[in-house]
């Protein structure tokens, strides 16, 4: 036959080198995105008791939504529950680092914010935390992307990203969709 075993081994070795090259190239691109553009998978291991999160601590009803701390840090706390987000509308400033914190009292949920890299699971027993900067203003859809039951398709919230000049916290540092 025209093609011998040696030629096959040589071609396979060459192909293995191409595969290693492709994987290395993609790894380098991901490392570049992580270091230069600060695009990293959200990572936060912070336990919370799902049975009592609505009774005390930071996820009580009065504490949900967007709040600006005395240091100017913008944090939004959201509870994901079958089959809604509480609150369903969240105001956030554009071009400023914001922190989104999620917890759930029932089953596993997940969120993504359309047009951004914000994407995380929300697991009972843990606080999910994402830091991001929204560069475009407007209303962004935030649906649940982990099937959580029969009403899953109705479970979504809206992030209202406003210019910094229109982002006006009240005396307690709170900003809500109702106030605007």
């Amino acid at each position, binding site marked *: 036959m025209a*093609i011998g075993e040696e030629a096959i081994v040589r071609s396979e070795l060459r192909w293995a080198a*191409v595969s290693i090259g492709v994987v290395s190239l993609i790894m380098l*691109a991901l490392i570049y995105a992580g270091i230069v553009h*600060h695009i*990293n998978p959200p990572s936060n291991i912070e336990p919370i008791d799902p049975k009592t999160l609505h009774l005390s601590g930071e996820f009580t009803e009065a504490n949900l939504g967007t709040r600006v701390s005395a240091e100017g840090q913008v944090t939004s706390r959201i509870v994901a529950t079958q089959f809604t987000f509480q609150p369903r509308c969240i105001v956030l400033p554009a071009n400023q680092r914001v922190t989104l914190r999620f917890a759930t009292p029932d089953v596993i949920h997940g969120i993504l914010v359309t*047009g951004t*890299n914000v994407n995380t699971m929300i697991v009972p027993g843990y606080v999910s935390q994402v*830091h991001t900067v*929204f560069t475009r203003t407007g209303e962004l859809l935030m649906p649940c992307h982990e099937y959580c039951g029969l009403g899953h398709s109705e479970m979504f919230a809206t992030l209202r990203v406003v210019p910094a000049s229109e982002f006006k916290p009240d005396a307690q540092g709170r900003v809500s969709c109702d106030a605007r």
Partner: protein
Amino acid sequence: MTPEEELERVMRDVPRGALALAALSVGLLLVGWFLVYLLVFLPRGMVS
């Protein structure tokens, strides 16, 4: 051309075609990946 010669010709050409097809497929996949990376992933901004 005898059947043996015909088989030999096919066995000579087929590996080259398979390699070209594999290289084209992987090349297109890589181009597609980098188009999504540059035009979708990076513009969507920081997250951590």
